[in-house]
Structure formats: structure tokens, C-alpha cells
């Protein structure tokens, strides 16, 4: 009523000519008295207004004494001023530190955080800007409660493992990534600097609007656009840096190696090698780890243009990013060029059209990663230190002792030519029609197209001392070179139509009703070829046709696959008097991936919230905001392969026919098809609490959830009567239960601004069914023990480590005699394994669970301080309670090098109770899978430390510059861990069944960066 009264007065005064006049003034930031540019000044209740200029000044005409001016600016509290008799009105705006009012992007819309009744975590552009992340996923690491992010590899460009609320399935647990409304596979194409916000939909109710794809969480990424009425700005952001290995395992020197080799030979009843007669004469020998690690440069340059007029917004950016690897330098290097154009224009008052378009070219060079056979890391760790890097003539040397896989790692790196070069277009064009007040229709057509080429070349080489004798072992020579080239084309189009109606009944009942459809088609085509025996050994000449006889030796192949999705969805958000919130969503997804008998799936969800602090009775002055919320929903995981419902017809099922005994091909599907195949489904219940205290300075979010995966795909054994291998069926189930909390505090004392934040996530994972019979799944084979490390069984976490339990070392023969029988050759100095079932013999029945790769909790916390232009940021991230199985030492070989711990080996009674004796043959199988190799993988890491300085306004104004900041930062500066391997941060490179097995991970680099941010 009052508003209408003021409006009436305003209109009345407008119409009376002589009441009108002009006001001017300057708008500044209350915290530092610096002018604020681009503040919207409006006469309350009207659309016309003004924008503050570079000096924070504004001028507005048509006001009178009763006019109320509204000053609004993103991130600041809106301020109202009644003009009265003033003609100059200077205004100071206060920072809005409350998170409650921020607008959060949710599926197919946005909502004020205060009104969300689901569980959504957000990362803003400012947070991303604070730590120069190399990949988008890193921005989520440690910053979002409930999201566990681990680096799969320190190799530049390598994807990260992202798990939203635990490992939802033994199959693909990756979340769904949506960039500007476009579902994308992988994020390597995206330049982190282009990101405006990342929102993670964690509970089923928030993700349910993505139905059959939302089961493992949804990550919504919005890229930057200009703002309406924003002056044109040019941003230049750049950094250069240097990376190096933060840790090297201490390995034996040549003389130590020789000494132990002699001992091992004698213990095995063999004559020591004559050249090791005097170990001390061999000295330190070669430090292979030192040899493979290198200082690697990295750099990023970004130019961004943003702005907006009354009707248009635009943002144009270009970025060049270049990172070499700390192993192999350029051989594991990553280069990325990105260009992005985002813009929109209001064509008619009722119609806005726009486009978001990103172009990416990336090139990644690959070295083998995370296996025990071909990685530079495993080779450097296992190569004997006696062998020099190079021979006297400068060419690479080979080891006389090492076995097949363990070849000279430097030569192997040099001989590796494996590059991936791709061009990707991810773009959308959209139109928004305003049909009536509160009713709008949005239609968008999106394309994601990737064109990639992989080039692999295996050159000729021979490390033989005498090429005529060809004395080098098989792995140290390749006498015929070969080339492989593969082209891939992935294309996705999506057409999405969404109708949104915002309305209210009376002043208490607010509704937002959303409905829409999606049609999506994915297609993938590939072709490739190979050839051998190229006359030129130069990788630049590595083309299939460059051979003497290209036709007879070449091979070629091509193929394609596709999938499609058709969906209908709807959601109602209801809010009663800003106190009671209710949201319900339903999505129906039809997918070509599902078998004919289950083509459509329906995914419902409901959530509710109660903002207690908005109740009349609320009178706790320190608690500004308190909301409790609960949600339930059902989601699906459609990553089940494109044609899982059918089965492959395998040839080679041959029989011999004819008088000439001719092997004749037979073909049959060895696996039964399953037309009932469908999505994996996850049912999740969440209860949570959002609160703010002390005028928004302290904020708290707490969530508890239970997530039940059912219909998890698994090929459980079936009766032999069927006559074929078991089909993949929706039969297994997993449960994740956990809670997570995030707490942040920000305040200001004079010129000193500070903020602290932290979050912690607990999750418990348990397999609840593996189908009828429930046969456990064994996986994670390690070569050093020639056995599987993990066992996934009902009642245990996915991928639990399973093996023998050690109980010290046999000190004498009597102890062996008194213990259960282990092996014929067991001798003093060997490991004593526990006879768990007390049957007097150590065999496979004495294995048990010896480790869990899933952390008890993961956490992150940060501190940000600002004082007179200086800023300091510290960001820690960690993981607690996860185990790592260290399989980097190739015990299956007799001549490999070892970490220095082996120097504490047992050499006689009482000498050691942890390190067994050395013996060339390992008759006791000391290297079998046991708790001896299970290590505590907990760590805390200073992910980022950054110090910056911004020039003050007084200087900038003279230079007509908006912002000039320089900074220096260090990543992975401090890591505290008990893990003895190269890096405790280990992702699930080979999937959930083998997480936590270290087969020689490419460790993360320590990075020192210097950068600049310039805006003008």
C-alpha cells in the first residue's frame, strides 16, 4: 500500500513540470572508499535510470523531493535514498556477504539460495580465479562438500575422478556435466577462466530433473557473459610457471644394489655375479628417477572482452594454455587454444535471442600411465642403478639385468610418439519468448562436435652394443617401425524446449512451474589405419602411405555407433510466504541404450524446506537465517553402453571340415543378450540445514544422505544350462551413506578483510547385493604378486583390498616349525603370515580384508586475507582413512631396484621384524598380496598458496585502468602423508573396482606461478 502511495506521488510529481530536477553524486565501496563502476541507479518503481561511470559518478534527471533512488550492484547490498532537497547524493554501498541471496543455477532455471530445498553446492568465478586451476574439475576439489575429486595422474591434460557423494556403482560413476545447458563428455575442452559458476546438484531431488542421467550427480557449468548496461571492458589474465616433482622415492645406490644382489644370490644357492665382487667400487650409480624428472614450464594467456548495452550483452575471449609434463617434458605436454563468444540481444520486447559458442583446439602427448609394464615411472623405479643412462658413445645403454618390461626409461620416452589432436565446437543458439507476465518459453538448439586425430609412431631403434650381434633384449630394440593413425568424430545435437511460468496467488503463494522436452542424438564415427616398415624413421614422415609397398602391408578399419534420448520433464516450485518451500519434479527419459522391454524410465522427486527464521516467533537475533530441508528422489545412470541389450557375434568358434582338414569359421554370440537391460537407478534421501549467523558473516550448511543404488549392471554367474556367458543384468546394488558440512566466516576489521571456509565430507560405501548367489568380484590384478588385490563382496565397500595378514618375520627355524606350514622353502628371515582359520597351513583360506580405498572423510579449508591492496590466500585439501596398495616394485622380477627400506632387511635373528631377507627366488612368496603393501593413503596438502597486490585506485585512475593485480602462487607446496610412494593422491584410473592401487602413478607437480590480472 505504501509502495503504491509512493509510486502515485512519483507519477504525480513527474507530470508536474516544475517539480522535476536533476541529481548527481558518486558511489563508492564502503570498505575501501574506491569508486564503484556500473552501479545501477534507478527511480524506484520505474525502469529508467543511470549507470555510474569510471569514477563512480552518476547523473539522473526527472527527480523531485519525494523520489526514492535505488542503488544496486552485484555483490553489494541494495541501498534506497529519498532525494529530499538534495541535489548531490553520494552513496556508500556495503558488501553483501550473505550467501543466502545469491542466485544459484539449478536444472532448467535458477533459484535464490534461500529458497532451495535440495542439496546444491556452488563454486563462483572468484573462487576459481583465486587458484589458477589447470582443469575445471580442480575447481571442485576441496571447495565443495560431498564432492570428492582426485587426480588420476599428474600428466598434463589428464582427467580427474569426480565422485558426488560416494561411488554410486561399480561401473561408470562420473557425474553428468552440463555446460550452458549442453551435456558434454569430459571437460578438457573448457577453459577454467571462462567459467562464471559451477553448481553441483548432489541430492536426488535436485538432479531428478536430469532423470536417467542424474544418478551420479550433475555438475552445471555456466560460462561468463557480459551484463546489460555494462561498459566495455578488456581483461588480460596471464601466468607463467615452473613445475617440478615434489618428491622422489629413495632407491638403492649401485653399491647397495650390488651388495643385496650378492646376498640374494647366496640365499638362493646361486653364485653371486662376478662383476659385483666389490660392491663399494660401483658407487652411487644411476639415479633413474632423477633422470626421468624434469623442470617443466607452463603458461596461460587470456584476453577477454565483455560488455553490454540496454538490449545486448557480449563476451569474447581467447586463451592459450601450454603445459609440459614433469616426466618427459613435451612428450607428456598439453596445449590448448580456446575461443569463446557468448552474446544475447533483445530483438523485440518479447523476444531475446543469443548464442554461446566455444571453440577448442587441443593437443596432448601421451606417455604410458598407471601400469606396471610400460610407464616411465615403473621403469625408473625398477631399473637397476648399475646401468648407466648412456654408453660411452653417447647412445642409450640397456640393462644386462633388467627383465622384459624394465627398459631404459629415457630411451623409451624418446621413442614414444603418441599425440592426440582435437578440435571441438560446443555451442548453443537460443531464443526466449515472453508470452505473458511471468510466462516465458525458451528453445535452444545445441551442438557438441569433436574431430580428433591420434598419431602413433613406433620408430626403429636398437640399443645393442653391437648391432650385428643384436645383443639388446627384445624390449630395447624395435627393428621394424610402424605407424598408426586414427580419426574420431563425435557429434551430439540437442534440442530443448522449456516453458516457465512464475506466478503468485495473493501475496503468499508463489509458484514456479517448469515443463519441457529434450531430444538428443549422439553419434561417433571412427576410422584408422596402420602400416609398418617405413623407409624414414622420422616421426614427421609417419604417414601410412609412406612405405615402399603401401598396399600390401597396410591395414585399415572404420566404424560407427550412435544413441538417442527423448525426454519430457516438469517441475513445480512452491513457496508459501517465503517460509514453506515445496518442490516436485518428474522426468521421463526414453533412451536407445535401454532394451526394447524398458525403453522409458520415469524419475520422480520431491523436496521440502522450512525457513524457520522467517517465522514471526523467531527471535534469536544472532541467527539471521535458518532453514531445514528434506528431499527424496529417484535418478538413473544411463552410461551402460550404446548397445548393451544386444550381444556380439564372435567369430573364431571354428571346426575342421573337409578332406584337407580346413579350419572353418564359426560364429556365435558367446554372451546372451538382455532385452530387459535398463538404467541403473539411485534412490536418495537427504536432510539438510542452511543457517547464517551474525548478519551473514558466518554461514553453515549440513547435509545427511542415504543413497541406494539398485539395478547396478553386473554380469553375475548364471546356471550353465543357459549355455553362454552371463549377460550384463541390472542385478547388483550399493549403498552410500554420509554427511557433509561446509562452514564459512568472513569479516572486516578496518582495512583488514578476512574470510575462512572449510568443508568436510564423510561417506560409507557398502555393496548390498551382487545378484542371486552373490559371487564376489575379484579385480585389480598386480603383476608383482601375479594376483588380484581387490575383492568386492556384499557387505564390504567396493574394491576392498583382500589378501594375507603378516605377523612379522620368522627369526629362527623353531618359529617356522611352531607355525602353520607356509612353503617348502620358508626359512628364517621370511614373513610370517597369520593362519586365520587355524588349520595349520597358510593357503588361500587365510586371506581377509586388508584395506579400503575409500576415505573415511575428505576435506578442504581455505583462508583469504586482504589488506590495503595485498591479498593472501591459502587452500588446503586432504583425505583421511583411505588405503593405498603400493604395487610399484616389480617383485616378480629378480633383478629390480628397490626403495632403500630394503637395507633394513633381516640378516640374522633380531635384525628386523618388518623387512624380510633378500632371496632371488622368494620361496616363501613374501611378495604375495598382503597387508605389507597396504599403506595409509591419508594426506593433507597445501594445494595453493597465493600472494597478490592490486594497485590502488588513485594510481589506476591516472592510467585509466580498472584493475591491475600481480600475484605469485605455489601449488602442492606442502604435502603431509605417511604414504611412501610418489604421490598419495590417486584417482580411480581403472574404475571403482581398482581404486587405490598404485602401479606407478604419474605424480603431481609442485608448481610455482607468477601472474597478472589487468582490466581496462
Amino acid at each position, binding site marked *: 500500500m505504501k509502495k503504491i502511495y509512493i509510486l502515485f506521488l512519483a507519477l504525480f510529481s513527474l507530470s508536474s513540470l516544475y517539480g522535476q530536477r536533476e541529481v548527481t553524486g558518486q558511489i563508492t565501496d564502503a570498505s575501501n572508499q574506491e569508486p564503484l563502476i556500473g552501479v545501477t541507479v534507478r527511480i524506484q518503481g520505474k525502469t529508467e535510470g543511470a549507470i555510474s561511470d569510471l569514477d563512480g559518478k552518476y547523473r539522473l534527471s526527472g527527480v523531485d523531493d519525494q523520489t526514492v533512488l535505488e542503488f544496486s550492484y552485484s555483490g553489494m547490498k541494495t541501498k534506497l535514498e529519498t532525494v529530499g532537497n538534495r541535489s548531490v547524493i553520494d552513496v556508500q554501498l556495503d558488501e553483501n556477504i550473505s550467501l543466502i541471496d545469491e542466485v544459484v543455477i539449478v536444472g532448467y532455471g535458477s533459484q535464490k539460495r534461500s529458497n532451495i530445498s535440495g542439496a546444491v553446492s556452488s563454486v563462483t568465478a572468484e573462487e576459481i580465479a583465486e587458484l589458477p586451476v589447470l582443469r575445471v574439475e580442480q575447481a571442485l576439489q576441496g571447495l565443495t562438500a560431498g564432492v570428492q575429486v582426485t587426480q588420476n595422474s599428474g600428466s598434463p591434460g589428464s582427467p580427474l575422478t569426480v565422485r558426488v557423494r560416494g561411488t554410486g556403482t561399480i561401473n561408470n560413476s562420473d557425474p553428468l556435466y552440463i555446460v550452458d545447458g549442453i551435456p558434454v563428455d569430459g571437460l578438457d575442452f573448457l577453459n577454467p577462466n571462462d567459467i562464471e559458476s559451477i553448481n553441483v546438484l548432489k541430492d536426488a531431488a535436485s538432479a531428478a530433473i536430469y532423470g536417467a542421467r542424474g544418478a551420479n550427480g550433475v555438475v552445471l557449468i555456466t560460462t561468463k557473459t557480459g551484463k546489460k548496461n555494462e561498459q566495455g571492458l578488456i581483461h588480460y589474465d596471464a601466468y607463467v610457471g615452473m613445475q617440478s616433482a615434489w618428491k622422489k622415492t629413495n632407491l638403492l645406490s649401485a653399491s647397495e644394489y650390488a651388495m643385496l644382489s650378492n646376498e640374494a644370490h647366496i640365499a638362493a644357492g646361486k653364485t653371486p655375479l662376478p662383476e659385483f665382487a666389490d660392491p663399494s667400487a660401483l658407487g652411487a650409480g644411476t639415479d633413474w628417477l632423477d633422470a626421468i624428472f624434469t623442470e617443466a614450464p607452463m603458461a596461460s594467456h587470456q584476453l577477454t572482452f565483455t560488455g553490454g548495452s540496454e538490449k545486448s550483452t557480449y563476451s569474447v575471449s581467447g586463451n592459450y594454455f601450454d603445459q609440459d609434463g614433469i616426466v618427459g617434458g613435451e612428450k607428456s605436454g598439453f596445449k590448448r587454444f580456446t575461443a569463446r563468444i557468448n552474446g544475447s540481444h533483445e530483438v523485440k520486447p518479447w523476444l531475446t535471442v543469443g548464442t554461446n559458442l566455444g571453440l577448442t583446439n587441443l593437443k596432448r602427448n601421451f606417455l604410458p600411465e598407471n601400469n606396471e609394464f610400460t610407464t616411465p615411472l615403473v621403469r625408473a623405479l625398477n631399473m637397476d642403478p648399475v646401468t648407466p643412462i648412456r654408453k660411452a658413445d653417447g647412445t642409450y645403454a640397456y640393462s644386462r639385468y633388467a627383465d622384459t618390461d624394465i627398459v631404459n626409461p629415457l630411451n623409451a620416452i624418446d621413442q614414444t610418439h603418441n599425440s592426440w589432436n582435437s578440435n571441438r565446437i560446443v555451442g548453443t543458439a537460443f531464443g526466449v519468448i515472453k508470452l505473458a507476465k511471468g510466462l516465458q518459453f525458451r528453445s535452444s538448439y545445441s551442438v557438441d562436435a569433436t574431430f580428433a586425430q591420434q598419431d602413433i609412431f613406433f620408430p626403429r631403434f636398437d640399443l645393442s652394443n653391437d648391432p650385428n650381434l643384436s645383443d639388446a633384449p627384445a624390449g630395447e630394440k624395435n627393428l621394424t617401425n610402424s605407424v598408426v593413425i586414427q580419426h574420431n568424430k563425435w557429434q551430439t545435437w540437442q534440442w530443448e524446449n522449456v516453458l516457465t511460468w512464475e506466478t503468485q496467488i495473493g501475496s503468499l503463494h508463489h509458484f514456479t512451474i517448469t515443463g519441457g*522436452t529434450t531430444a538428443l542424438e549422439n553419434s561417433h564415427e571412427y576410422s584408422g589405419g596402420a602400416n609398418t616398415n617405413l623407409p624414414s624413421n622420422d616421426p614427421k614422415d609417419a604417414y601410412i602411405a609412406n612405405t615402399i609397398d603401401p598396399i600390401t602391408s597396410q591395414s585399415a578399419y572404420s566404424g560407427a*555407433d550412435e544413441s*538417442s534420448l527423448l525426454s519430457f520433464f516438469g517441475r513445480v516450485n512452491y513457496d508459501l510466504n517465503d517460509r514453506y518451500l515445496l518442490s516436485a519434479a518428474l522426468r521421463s527419459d526414453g533412451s536407445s541404450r535401454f532394451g526394447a522391454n524398458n525403453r522409458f524410465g520415469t524419475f520422480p522427486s520431491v523436496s521440502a524446506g522450512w525457513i524457520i527464521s522467517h517465522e514471526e516467533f523467531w527471535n534469536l537475533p544472532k541467527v539471521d537465517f535458518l532453514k531445514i530441508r528434506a528431499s527424496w528422489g529417484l535418478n538413473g545412470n544411463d552410461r551402460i553402453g550404446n548397445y548393451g541389450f544386444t550381444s556380439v557375434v564372435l567369430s573364431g568358434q571354428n571346426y575342421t571340415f573337409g578332406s584337407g582338414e580346413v579350419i*572353418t569359421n564359426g*560364429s556365435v554370440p558367446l554372451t546372451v543378450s538382455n532385452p530387459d537391460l535398463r538404467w541403473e537407478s539411485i534412490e536418495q534421501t537427504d536432510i539438510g540445514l542452511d543457517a547464517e549467523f551474525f548478519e551473514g558473516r558466518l554461514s553453515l550448511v549440513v547435509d545427511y544422505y542415504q543413497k541406494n543404488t539398485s539395478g547396478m549392471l553386473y554380469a553375475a554367474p548364471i546356471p550353465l544350462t543357459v549355455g553362454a556367458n552371463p549377460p550384463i543384468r541390472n542385478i547388483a546394488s550399493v549403498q552410500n551413506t554420509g554427511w557433509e558440512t561446509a562452514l564459512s566466516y568472513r569479516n572486516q576489521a578496518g582495512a583488514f578483510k578476512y574470510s575462512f571456509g572449510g568443508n568436510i565430507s564423510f561417506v560409507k560405501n557398502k555393496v548390498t547385493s551382487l545378484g542371486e548367489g552373490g559371487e564376489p568380484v575379484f579385480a585389480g590384478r598386480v603383476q608383482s604378486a601375479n594376483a588380484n588385490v581387490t575383492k568386492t563382496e556384499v557387505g564390504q565397500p567396493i574394491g576392498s583390498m583382500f589378501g594375507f595378514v603378516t605377523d612379522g618375520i620368522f627369526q629362527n627355524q623353531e618359529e617356522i616349525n611352531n607355525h602353520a606350514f607356509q612353503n617348502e622353502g620358508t626359512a628364517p628371515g621370511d614373513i610370517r603370515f597369520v593362519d586365520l582359520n587355524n588349520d595349520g597351513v597358510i593357503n588361500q583360506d587365510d586371506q581377509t580384508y586388508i584395506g579400503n580405498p575409500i576415505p573415511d572423510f575428505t576435506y578442504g579449508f581455505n583462508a583469504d586475507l586482504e589488506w590495503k591492496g595485498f591479498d593472501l590466500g591459502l587452500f588446503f585439501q586432504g583425505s583421511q582413512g583411505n588405503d593405498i596398495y603400493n604395487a610399484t616394485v616389480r617383485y616378480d622380477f629378480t633383478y629390480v631396484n628397490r626403495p632403500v627400506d630394503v637395507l633394513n632387511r633381516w640378516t640374522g635373528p633380531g635384525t628386523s621384524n618388518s623387512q624380510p631377507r633378500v632371496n632371488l627366488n622368494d620361496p616363501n612368496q613374501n611378495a604375495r598380496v598382503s597387508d605389507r603393501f597396504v599403506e595409509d593413503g591419508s594426506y593433507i596438502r597445501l594445494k595453493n598458496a597465493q600472494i597478490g597486490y592490486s594497485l590502488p585506485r588513485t594510481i589506476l585512475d591516472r592510467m585509466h585502468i580498472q584493475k591491475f593485480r600481480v600475484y605469485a602462487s605455489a601449488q602442492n607446496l606442502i604435502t603431509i602423508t605417511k604414504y611412501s610412494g610418489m604421490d598419495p593422491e590417486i584417482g580411480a584410473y581403472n574404475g571403482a573396482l581398482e581404486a587405490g592401487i598404485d602401479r606407478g602413478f604419474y605424480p603431481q607437480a609442485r608448481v610455482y606461478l607468477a601472474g597478472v590480472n589487468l582490466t581496462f
Partner: protein
Amino acid sequence: MNAIKYVSFLLLVAAMLLPTACQKDFLDRKPIVGTTEENFYRTAEDAQAAINAAYAPLQFELSPAGHFRWFWGDIMSDDSEKGGSGDNDANELLQLENFNGAANTDLLEGEWSADYEGIYRANVVLERVPAIEMDPTLKAQILGEARFIRSWFFYNLVTMFGGVPLADHVLAPSEYNLPRATADEVWMLIESDLNQAIEDLPVRSAYGPEDLGRITKGAAQALLLKSLVWQKRWPEAQAIAEEIILSMEYDLASDYGSIFTQDGENNIESIFEIQYMNASGGNWGKNNANEGTFTNVFQRARGQFEGFGFNIPTEDFVQEFFKEGFEDPRLAHTVFREGDAMGDRGVFTQDAAGQPYAYYPKKYFNNKSEEAPFGDPNPNGGSNDRVIRFADVLLMHAEAAYHNNMEGPARTSLNRVRARARGGNTNILPDVTASGQALLDAIYHERRVELGLEGHRFFDLVRTGRASDVLGPLGFVSGIHELFPIPVSQIQATNGAITQNPGY
């Protein structure tokens, strides 16, 4: 202006509904490349590949799927013993042989598994090939081959385990726990399949040389004969046996000794023979992809003869050849005795073999020169498995005719077999003139010596009701050991839908 706004909205809505209208096509995506069920089974070549794949399980021998006919037919009987390096060498087999075998052996599971794998593959052919547009004669032949193969595996199952789950089509997930049918139901399926196959299959002489080894009309008739004999349906058995005899497609090889040589493979009296060859390059780990057999190496003496020494003939078996007062010449082609030359591998002595066995089986012996030219020779033996010979048909005819009170024709067929064995030596193996029980005993004796160590004996004893008399001293208990135990794993895998045989 409002009009334009709403028109454009309506146009979009109309367009939105388009994919909905044709959603079935939009969501129906079949594999584009690669061979999958969706795009295979379209041409005659596909049909051919499908039936060939159904033949492959005939060759399966070792775990996880496979069997040796001589494990059950010979070792389980009084003709031979397990042998090997000692009791611990394939101990499961020793326990079965002593009739105290457990129901959870890999061997029984391997038998069950191979049989059902073969049945599945035949079912795939029978379900998929009829829809293929191709030459109807060839199609009928392929379906006939599939019906024979399905019958053969069901024959193995029903004679070993009794009534088994009747998987007469590719099982859907809801049918995985299929319970056991009765033995009669299994026999009915075998009979109808074989009758259809007899109609559809060409006779042996109608096949070209490139199809040597394919199932013939005669093979289907002979398997039907075996089935009828097992069920003691003598008149029908005699009739089908006479059809085979009168077809003139088969005859006895003139020289008994030539049958089990390399040259004797697929000879004039071969009716059903599983084909193996010595050059597949298969290995121990991939034994189901082999074209070769392990039988050669398993049955050869150890030591310098480089075998494993299984299937050791018993003294009782050897004495059977002396029952008529002279040495039956077939002994020398069935059993190695000390001093005999083991082909090109040297003279057999217990010292040379390194084991205290007096006899070794001879029929599946292979010479060094016949071994696989590359790869590991052990899994790649080349000897075909002679499953049904014309001599067997003649002896079944004799047995059926005897039971039909037609002793004349019975003696004719019996004496035809003896005449060939005699090899012109008129001092031995005179024509049998006996009648009544003596004639039946003569037929039984003839089966034991003529078909010795070819995997028939145990099943002959069971089907003629003599097992408890003959094998009782070895542990055979009547009412239990006529059938083998169902593999326990399969009872568990079906949650007990498959039940155990009595006594186990």
C-alpha cells in the same frame, strides 16, 4: 505483434511434438557396424558360420567346458583304469572311478557345461536360420545338422544324468532356473529332432569332399538307433538299423587295424566322427579354441613316450580277448603290451615309460611324425574321435534282432563283424551259431572286443542291466551309480531348482 509472438510459440511447440510422434524410430538404434545379433543371421554365409560354431563344442575336452568320452565309457568301466602319474593326478577321476566321487567335480561340471553350450549354439541356429533367405535345401541341411548336434548333447546328458533341464530354445533370463525334465521327455525331444534331421540331411555320398566331417543322414539314423537301443525299443531299433545297413552308404573296413590310423579317419565305416587336426596352434589356456585333441597325449605312456599315461587297460579287459581259446587279433590293435613298438616313439617297456603299468591303450596313439608341426603338440593331437562306427550299428542290429526273436538276422550281423576281424585267418573267430542267452552273451562279448576303449563299455553295462554284476566289486551300487551326480554348483546356481540324483 502479439499474434506473431504466439504463432512463433505455437510453431515451436508443433515442432517439439515431431520427435514425439516418431519416437519409436528415434529411439530404436541397432548397432551399425560389428557383428551383433542385430545384424548377423542375414545370409547363407551367416547361417553356415552359425552351424559351424555349433560343431565347435563337439571338440571341447577340458574344463571349464568339455569331456572325454573315454573318461566315462572306459575308465568308469572294467576295461581300464585312470592311470596317470599317481593317485593325485586327476584324483577326481579316480574317485569317480571308485564310485565315491563327489558331486562338485570340475569334470562333471565340464561335461554339463559343454553339453549345454552345444545345445545353446544349436538352439541359436534353429531360432535364427529359418528367417534367412537362402537355398532351401542348404537351409534344411543346416537345421538338420543343428538338430543332430542338439540331440547328441542331450544324449550325453540323459545317459549320464537322467532327466535334465530341457533347454529346447535359447533361455530368457526368467527361465534360467529351469528345473529338470524327466528322462522320457528328453528322449522324446531327441527322437523328434533326429527324425526331422533324418528327413533333412543328405546321405554321406551326397556331400562334397569339402564337407567331410559334416553330420549325415546316416549319423542321425545311427544316433536314433543308439537312443532306441538305450530305451530297449527293439523293433524300431532293428528297423532303423536295417535302413542304415541297406542304404549301402557304409561298410566295414577290410582291415580292422587300419581303422585307428591316420588314413583310417572318416573311412568307409565311419558314421559319426568328431574331427580334430594337429595344426591349430591352440594352447593349454585356450583349449576350447583348439582344433586338436588332448586325447593323444593323455593316453600315451609317460617317460620317453612323452604322454601322461591315462586310460590304462585292465588285465580283465585283456583276458576278454583270450576268452575263445585263441588271441583275438583285435587285441594287438587295441592294447600295447611290453615289447610292442609304440609307433616311431620306440619299444614299450615299463622302464621306458617310467611307470608300473603293463598295458597302454593303442587306438588313439599318435606317432611323433604326426604331431603338430608348430606350437605345443600336447593340446593339438590330430586323431579324430570315432564315435559311431558301422560295426557298432551291426552289433546293435544283432542285439535288437535277438530281442525281437530274429536270431538269424542277429547272427548275420554279428558274424559280419567277426568275419572282418578274422582277416582271412580261418583258425580263429568262427561264425557264431549259438542261440538264446549264449547268442546274447556272444553279442555282448563282441561289443567289448570290437569296440574296446572307444568309450562304450560303461554305458553298455548300464543299459543292459549288467553293471551291478560286473562293476559291483569295483563299488557300483545298483539304483545309484547308473547315473552320475548332478554338479552341485548347478544345484546352487539355480537355488535348488535343479535337484540331485538319488544316492548322492
